[in-house]
Protein backbone atom coordinates (compact mmCIF):
# COMPACT_ATOMS: atom_id res chain seq x y z
CA UNK A 1 0.00 0.00 0.00
CA UNK A 2 1.42 3.38 -0.99
CA UNK A 3 1.56 6.39 1.32
CA UNK A 4 -0.98 8.04 -1.02
CA UNK A 5 -3.50 5.40 0.09
CA UNK A 6 -2.53 5.38 3.76
CA UNK A 7 -2.97 9.09 4.42
CA UNK A 8 -6.71 9.33 3.46
CA UNK A 9 -7.48 6.30 5.68
CA UNK A 10 -5.64 7.85 8.62
CA UNK A 11 -7.58 11.06 8.02
CA UNK A 12 -10.80 9.01 8.04
CA UNK A 13 -9.78 7.46 11.37
CA UNK A 14 -9.28 10.90 12.93
CA UNK A 15 -12.77 11.83 11.67
CA UNK A 16 -14.28 8.71 13.26
CA UNK A 17 -12.70 9.56 16.62
CA UNK A 18 -14.10 13.13 16.47
CA UNK A 19 -17.59 11.83 15.64
CA UNK A 20 -17.30 9.28 18.47
CA UNK A 21 -16.46 12.06 20.95
CA UNK A 22 -19.40 14.09 19.61
CA UNK A 23 -21.91 11.23 20.02
CA UNK A 24 -20.69 10.39 23.55
CA UNK A 25 -20.84 14.09 24.55
CA UNK A 26 -24.41 14.34 23.25
CA UNK A 27 -25.41 11.24 25.25
CA UNK A 28 -23.96 12.76 28.41
CA UNK A 29 -25.76 16.05 27.62
CA UNK A 30 -29.08 14.15 27.36
CA UNK A 31 -28.41 12.54 30.75
CA UNK A 32 -27.54 15.96 32.22
CA UNK A 33 -30.80 17.41 30.87
CA UNK A 34 -32.64 14.54 32.59
CA UNK A 35 -31.22 15.65 35.95
CA UNK A 36 -32.50 19.23 35.39
CA UNK A 37 -36.08 17.92 35.84
CA UNK A 38 -37.48 20.07 33.03
CA UNK A 39 -41.21 20.01 32.21
CA UNK A 40 -42.04 16.84 30.27
CA UNK A 41 -42.73 18.50 26.88
CA UNK A 42 -39.43 20.46 27.00
CA UNK A 43 -37.55 17.32 28.08
CA UNK A 44 -39.11 15.27 25.24
CA UNK A 45 -38.27 17.90 22.59
CA UNK A 46 -34.67 18.35 23.77
CA UNK A 47 -33.96 14.66 24.27
CA UNK A 48 -35.43 13.57 20.91
CA UNK A 49 -33.56 16.41 19.17
CA UNK A 50 -30.27 15.21 20.71
CA UNK A 51 -31.04 11.59 19.75
CA UNK A 52 -31.82 12.70 16.17
CA UNK A 53 -28.45 14.51 15.89
CA UNK A 54 -26.68 11.42 17.28
CA UNK A 55 -28.43 9.16 14.75
CA UNK A 56 -27.55 11.61 11.94
CA UNK A 57 -23.87 11.51 12.97
CA UNK A 58 -23.81 7.70 13.34
CA UNK A 59 -25.63 7.04 10.04
CA UNK A 60 -23.86 9.83 8.14
CA UNK A 61 -20.28 9.12 9.19
CA UNK A 62 -20.06 5.65 10.77
CA UNK A 63 -22.30 4.12 8.08
CA UNK A 64 -20.88 6.45 5.38
CA UNK A 65 -24.26 7.65 4.14
CA UNK A 66 -22.95 11.17 3.60
CA UNK A 67 -19.93 10.11 1.54
CA UNK A 68 -21.47 7.15 -0.31
CA UNK A 69 -23.70 8.92 -2.80
CA UNK A 70 -25.37 5.93 -4.44
CA UNK A 71 -28.83 6.44 -5.93
CA UNK A 72 -29.98 2.92 -5.07
CA UNK A 73 -29.20 3.51 -1.37
CA UNK A 74 -31.14 6.75 -1.31
CA UNK A 75 -34.13 5.05 -3.00
CA UNK A 76 -34.10 2.22 -0.44
CA UNK A 77 -33.69 4.62 2.49
CA UNK A 78 -36.35 7.08 1.27
CA UNK A 79 -38.89 4.25 0.90
CA UNK A 80 -37.91 2.96 4.34
CA UNK A 81 -38.29 6.42 5.88
CA UNK A 82 -41.76 6.83 4.30
CA UNK A 83 -42.90 3.41 5.58
CA UNK A 84 -41.46 3.99 9.07
CA UNK A 85 -43.19 7.38 9.26
CA UNK A 86 -46.44 5.75 8.10
CA UNK A 87 -46.07 3.08 10.78
CA UNK A 88 -45.44 5.83 13.35
CA UNK A 89 -48.15 8.28 12.29
CA UNK A 90 -51.09 6.24 10.90
CA UNK A 91 -51.93 4.36 14.13
CA UNK A 92 -51.87 7.68 16.02
CA UNK A 93 -54.29 9.24 13.52
CA UNK A 94 -56.62 6.25 13.87
CA UNK A 95 -56.24 6.40 17.64
CA UNK A 96 -57.58 9.94 17.76
CA UNK A 97 -60.41 9.16 15.30
CA UNK A 98 -59.76 12.25 13.21
CA UNK A 99 -61.03 10.83 9.91
CA UNK A 100 -63.64 13.41 8.79
CA UNK A 101 -67.17 12.24 8.13
CA UNK A 102 -66.86 9.07 10.17
CA UNK A 103 -69.61 8.40 12.69
CA UNK A 104 -68.58 6.43 15.76
CA UNK A 105 -71.10 4.67 17.93
CA UNK A 106 -70.62 3.48 21.47
CA UNK A 107 -71.33 -0.24 21.49
CA UNK A 108 -70.44 -0.89 25.12
Amino acid at each position, binding site marked *: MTTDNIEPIKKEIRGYVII*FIGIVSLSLTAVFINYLHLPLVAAIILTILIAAVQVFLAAGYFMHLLSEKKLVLYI*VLTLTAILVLAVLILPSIEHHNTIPGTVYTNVS
Partner: protein
Amino acid sequence: MSTETIPYTVESRYDTGLYNAKLGIWLFLASEAMLFGALFSSYILLRVGAVDWPRGSSILSVPLGAFNTVLLISSSLTMLLSWAALRLKDFKKFKILLGITILLALLFLSVKSYEYYLKFEHHLFASKSTFLAIYFTMTGLHALHIIGGIVVNTYLWGPGSRMWKTQPERFTNRIEIAGLYWHFVDLVWLFLFPVLYLL
Protein backbone atom coordinates in the same frame (compact mmCIF):
# COMPACT_ATOMS: atom_id res chain seq x y z
CA MET B 1 -16.96 -29.49 -9.05
CA SER B 2 -18.05 -26.12 -10.39
CA THR B 3 -15.39 -23.48 -10.87
CA GLU B 4 -17.92 -20.64 -11.11
CA THR B 5 -17.40 -17.84 -8.64
CA ILE B 6 -20.00 -15.63 -7.01
CA PRO B 7 -19.99 -12.31 -8.90
CA TYR B 8 -19.69 -8.83 -7.38
CA THR B 9 -18.24 -9.84 -4.01
CA VAL B 10 -15.45 -7.30 -4.40
CA GLU B 11 -16.11 -5.18 -7.46
CA SER B 12 -19.18 -2.93 -7.70
CA ARG B 13 -22.11 -3.78 -9.97
CA TYR B 14 -22.37 -1.46 -12.96
CA ASP B 15 -26.07 -0.69 -12.26
CA THR B 16 -26.10 -0.20 -8.47
CA GLY B 17 -22.56 1.04 -7.95
CA LEU B 18 -22.29 -1.27 -4.93
CA TYR B 19 -21.04 -4.80 -4.40
CA ASN B 20 -23.96 -7.20 -3.88
CA ALA B 21 -23.47 -7.88 -0.18
CA LYS B 22 -23.58 -4.17 0.63
CA LEU B 23 -26.89 -3.69 -1.15
CA GLY B 24 -28.13 -6.83 0.60
CA ILE B 25 -27.24 -5.58 4.08
CA TRP B 26 -28.90 -2.21 3.38
CA LEU B 27 -32.13 -3.96 2.32
CA PHE B 28 -31.95 -6.06 5.48
CA LEU B 29 -31.37 -2.95 7.61
CA ALA B 30 -34.37 -1.30 5.92
CA SER B 31 -36.56 -4.20 7.10
CA GLU B 32 -35.01 -3.90 10.56
CA ALA B 33 -35.82 -0.17 10.64
CA MET B 34 -39.47 -1.02 9.94
CA LEU B 35 -39.47 -3.66 12.69
CA PHE B 36 -38.16 -1.23 15.31
CA GLY B 37 -40.31 1.56 13.82
CA ALA B 38 -43.40 -0.55 14.51
CA LEU B 39 -42.26 -1.06 18.10
CA PHE B 40 -41.64 2.67 18.59
CA SER B 41 -45.11 3.28 17.15
CA SER B 42 -46.54 0.83 19.71
CA TYR B 43 -44.65 2.65 22.46
CA ILE B 44 -46.10 6.03 21.41
CA LEU B 45 -49.64 4.62 21.20
CA LEU B 46 -49.37 2.93 24.59
CA ARG B 47 -47.93 6.06 26.19
CA VAL B 48 -50.46 8.45 24.64
CA GLY B 49 -53.32 6.14 25.58
CA ALA B 50 -52.17 5.58 29.17
CA VAL B 51 -53.82 7.43 32.05
CA ASP B 52 -50.54 7.46 33.93
CA TRP B 53 -47.03 6.79 32.60
CA PRO B 54 -43.93 6.67 34.80
CA ARG B 55 -40.76 8.55 33.95
CA GLY B 56 -38.17 5.96 32.94
CA SER B 57 -35.62 7.35 35.40
CA SER B 58 -37.97 6.57 38.31
CA ILE B 59 -37.84 2.84 37.50
CA LEU B 60 -34.64 2.28 35.51
CA SER B 61 -31.03 3.07 36.40
CA VAL B 62 -29.91 6.04 34.27
CA PRO B 63 -26.18 5.64 35.17
CA LEU B 64 -26.23 1.98 34.05
CA GLY B 65 -28.10 2.90 30.85
CA ALA B 66 -25.67 5.75 30.14
CA PHE B 67 -22.70 3.44 30.79
CA ASN B 68 -24.14 0.92 28.31
CA THR B 69 -24.61 3.72 25.76
CA VAL B 70 -20.92 4.64 26.02
CA LEU B 71 -19.97 0.95 25.72
CA LEU B 72 -22.00 0.51 22.53
CA ILE B 73 -20.74 3.72 20.90
CA SER B 74 -17.17 2.66 21.78
CA SER B 75 -17.76 -0.74 20.18
CA SER B 76 -18.97 1.02 17.02
CA LEU B 77 -15.71 2.98 16.94
CA THR B 78 -13.53 -0.13 17.43
CA MET B 79 -15.53 -1.91 14.70
CA LEU B 80 -14.76 0.96 12.31
CA LEU B 81 -11.10 0.97 13.34
CA SER B 82 -10.84 -2.79 12.74
CA TRP B 83 -12.12 -2.26 9.19
CA ALA B 84 -9.65 0.60 8.72
CA ALA B 85 -6.85 -1.68 10.01
CA LEU B 86 -7.66 -4.22 7.28
CA ARG B 87 -7.57 -1.47 4.65
CA LEU B 88 -4.12 -0.58 6.00
CA LYS B 89 -3.18 -4.31 5.66
CA ASP B 90 -2.61 -4.58 9.42
CA PHE B 91 -4.21 -7.94 10.24
CA LYS B 92 -2.82 -8.12 13.79
CA LYS B 93 -4.37 -4.76 14.69
CA PHE B 94 -7.64 -5.88 13.09
CA LYS B 95 -7.75 -8.94 15.38
CA ILE B 96 -7.15 -6.81 18.48
CA LEU B 97 -9.78 -4.20 17.54
CA LEU B 98 -12.48 -6.69 16.53
CA GLY B 99 -11.70 -8.62 19.73
CA ILE B 100 -12.28 -5.43 21.75
CA THR B 101 -15.57 -4.88 19.86
CA ILE B 102 -16.76 -8.36 20.88
CA LEU B 103 -15.67 -7.82 24.51
CA LEU B 104 -17.49 -4.46 24.68
CA ALA B 105 -20.64 -6.14 23.30
CA LEU B 106 -20.36 -8.90 25.92
CA LEU B 107 -19.92 -6.26 28.62
CA PHE B 108 -23.03 -4.47 27.31
CA LEU B 109 -25.01 -7.71 27.61
CA SER B 110 -23.65 -8.31 31.13
CA VAL B 111 -24.79 -4.84 32.28
CA LYS B 112 -28.17 -5.41 30.60
CA SER B 113 -28.51 -8.79 32.36
CA TYR B 114 -27.65 -7.14 35.67
CA GLU B 115 -30.34 -4.52 35.04
CA TYR B 116 -32.87 -7.28 34.31
CA TYR B 117 -31.74 -9.07 37.48
CA LEU B 118 -32.37 -5.91 39.54
CA LYS B 119 -35.87 -5.64 38.10
CA PHE B 120 -36.70 -9.31 38.70
CA GLU B 121 -35.32 -9.11 42.23
CA HIS B 122 -37.93 -6.42 42.96
CA HIS B 123 -40.62 -8.51 41.23
CA LEU B 124 -40.80 -6.02 38.36
CA PHE B 125 -41.78 -8.31 35.49
CA ALA B 126 -43.21 -7.52 32.04
CA SER B 127 -46.67 -8.45 33.34
CA LYS B 128 -46.48 -5.81 36.09
CA SER B 129 -47.14 -2.71 33.94
CA THR B 130 -47.41 -1.50 30.34
CA PHE B 131 -44.16 0.45 30.75
CA LEU B 132 -42.26 -2.65 31.86
CA ALA B 133 -43.88 -4.74 29.10
CA ILE B 134 -42.68 -2.38 26.34
CA TYR B 135 -39.30 -1.95 28.13
CA PHE B 136 -38.61 -5.69 28.19
CA THR B 137 -39.92 -6.18 24.63
CA MET B 138 -37.79 -3.43 23.09
CA THR B 139 -34.59 -3.98 25.07
CA GLY B 140 -34.99 -7.77 24.77
CA LEU B 141 -35.29 -7.57 20.98
CA HIS B 142 -32.31 -5.22 20.91
CA ALA B 143 -30.31 -7.64 23.07
CA LEU B 144 -31.11 -10.45 20.60
CA HIS B 145 -29.64 -8.26 17.85
CA ILE B 146 -26.52 -7.75 19.98
CA ILE B 147 -26.20 -11.53 20.42
CA GLY B 148 -26.56 -11.96 16.64
CA GLY B 149 -23.81 -9.38 16.09
CA ILE B 150 -21.53 -11.11 18.59
CA VAL B 151 -22.01 -14.47 16.82
CA VAL B 152 -21.16 -12.96 13.40
CA ASN B 153 -18.21 -10.92 14.70
CA THR B 154 -16.81 -13.91 16.62
CA TYR B 155 -16.97 -16.02 13.45
CA LEU B 156 -15.20 -13.27 11.48
CA TRP B 157 -12.61 -12.91 14.26
CA GLY B 158 -11.98 -16.67 14.45
CA PRO B 159 -12.50 -19.22 11.65
CA GLY B 160 -13.88 -16.68 9.18
CA SER B 161 -10.66 -14.66 9.28
CA ARG B 162 -8.84 -17.37 7.29
CA MET B 163 -10.31 -15.72 4.20
CA TRP B 164 -7.83 -12.85 4.71
CA LYS B 165 -5.03 -15.12 3.38
CA THR B 166 -6.83 -16.08 0.17
CA GLN B 167 -9.24 -13.19 -0.58
CA PRO B 168 -8.24 -10.14 1.48
CA GLU B 169 -10.50 -7.65 -0.34
CA ARG B 170 -13.57 -9.86 0.01
CA PHE B 171 -12.80 -10.35 3.71
CA THR B 172 -12.42 -6.57 4.17
CA ASN B 173 -15.86 -6.14 2.57
CA ARG B 174 -17.32 -8.72 4.97
CA ILE B 175 -16.03 -6.69 7.91
CA GLU B 176 -17.54 -3.53 6.40
CA ILE B 177 -20.93 -5.26 6.13
CA ALA B 178 -20.75 -6.66 9.67
CA GLY B 179 -19.86 -3.10 10.73
CA LEU B 180 -22.91 -1.62 9.01
CA TYR B 181 -25.12 -4.03 10.94
CA TRP B 182 -23.29 -3.22 14.17
CA HIS B 183 -23.69 0.55 13.69
CA PHE B 184 -27.41 0.02 13.08
CA VAL B 185 -27.74 -1.86 16.39
CA ASP B 186 -25.89 1.06 18.03
CA LEU B 187 -28.19 3.53 16.29
CA VAL B 188 -31.33 1.78 17.61
CA TRP B 189 -29.92 2.00 21.14
CA LEU B 190 -29.30 5.74 20.68
CA PHE B 191 -33.12 6.07 20.44
CA LEU B 192 -34.00 3.37 22.96
CA PHE B 193 -31.90 4.83 25.78
CA PRO B 194 -33.47 8.33 25.89
CA VAL B 195 -36.99 7.10 25.13
CA LEU B 196 -37.04 4.42 27.84
CA TYR B 197 -34.61 5.75 30.47
CA LEU B 198 -34.86 9.54 30.28
CA LEU B 199 -38.42 10.43 29.26
